Structure formats: C-alpha cells, structure tokens
C-alpha cells in the first residue's frame, strides 16, 4: 500500500511517500500502526482532528475501511484558492 504525506505532515514524518505492508482494517488502525513505529509518526498524527485523509484520491474519514485501497494520503486541511 502506498502512503503519501503532504505539507507539514510530510515535513514531520520526513518523507513524501512510502510503500508498506499492513493488515490494518481501517485508516485509524493504520494510523495506530504507524504511530507505534517511530516518534516522528506519533508527532505527525498526534491530533488527527487536524488531519484529513484520502483513499485512492477521494476524501474520506478515519473510520473508513482499507480493503482494496492502493493509495492512502494524509495531509492538513487544504488551503488552495
């Protein structure tokens, strides 16, 4: 599964993208798994209410299931326009 990070999430974790093997059932499970790996993940995901997540390029919630998903992206609220 490809995991992408943008903006300050990318900066805190220190990379823009990585490919991982995971059995996580939901986004929240994946976040818990990443936070357990290293402090930089725990720092980036400290407050998930300040984050947004997209599965295969569609915005969704942290309770969304990961079955069949190829690309997960984490980022702060968007500030385009």
């Amino acid at each position, binding site marked *: 599964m490809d995991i992408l990070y943008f903006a300050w999430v990318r900066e805190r974790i220190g990379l823009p993208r990585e490919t991982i093997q995971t059995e996580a059932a939901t986004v929240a499970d994946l976040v818990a798994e990443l936070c357990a790996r290293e402090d930089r993940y725990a720092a980036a995901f400290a407050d998930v209410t300040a984050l947004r997540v997209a599965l295969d390029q569609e915005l969704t919630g942290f309770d969304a299931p990961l079955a069949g998903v190829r690309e997960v992206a984490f980022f702060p609220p*968007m500030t*385009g*326009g």
Partner: protein
Amino acid sequence: MAVRIQEAAFGAGAELDRFTADAPGAGAVVSFTGVVRDVDGGLRHMLIEHYPGMTERAITALVSEAKARWNLTDALVIHRFGQLAPGDPIMMVATASAHRADAFAAADFLMDYLKSRAPFWKKEVTADGADWVAAKDADEDALSRW
C-alpha cells in the same frame, strides 16, 4: 470546460479574453483571480504544494457539479503550484452563462469548494522563516451555503 494545474505563471487578462472569445452566446462572464498577498514582515515567496492526480480529479468533479447545478456554457479553472512571488496570480476561475446569476453563483461555488476541497497547501516564506498557512473555519463554514 478546462482544468489546468500548472507550475508556470499565467496572465489572468489573457486567459479571460481567450475564455470570453471561446464562449459565444454566453452574454455573462464572471472571473475570480486569487493573488499572492504580501504579509507583515515581507513575503519572499509563497510555496504551493499539491497532490498530483487527486487535484485534477477533485477539481474536475467540482466543475461537473457546477455544470449540473447551473446553466453554464463554459468554465475554466487554473491553479498554480510551486514557487510564487507577491502579486502573482495563484489561481483563476471563470464561468460563462447566458444568465449573470448562474455565472456568479457557479464561480462563487467553485471558489468555496476549491478553497477547502482541492488538495493544495500554501506555505509563506519570509525573512523570519516559513509557515504553512492555516485553514480558516470560515472557509469550511462557507460550504454550508451550497
């Protein structure tokens, strides 16, 4: 209908003229241009990060929704990424319709959704350092209008 996500600068006036010339029978053309503002302490430049792929998908979906909700003959969205200087156009939306109310509503709608639903992130670089621009509650609240 065109959606362009680009690093290169663009001229809002030239884009407006081309859009208007290509919209015969429209009668009403509304444009919005977002411009890089200076900040206290002096902005060196703005950096815009985006999510290639999702950006085009999200904006194309917004334009399709605008076409479904209002009577538009054409619509255009241009959004830059990369490094921008103060005074540079960041992005532009243009809508064309036989009716001015439709052109206004669709442009206003597209801007509200682009602000909070298109995956762009702005960072302001000044002499003091670099800061990510925080999303505003007012921008999220604006979506409830539609």
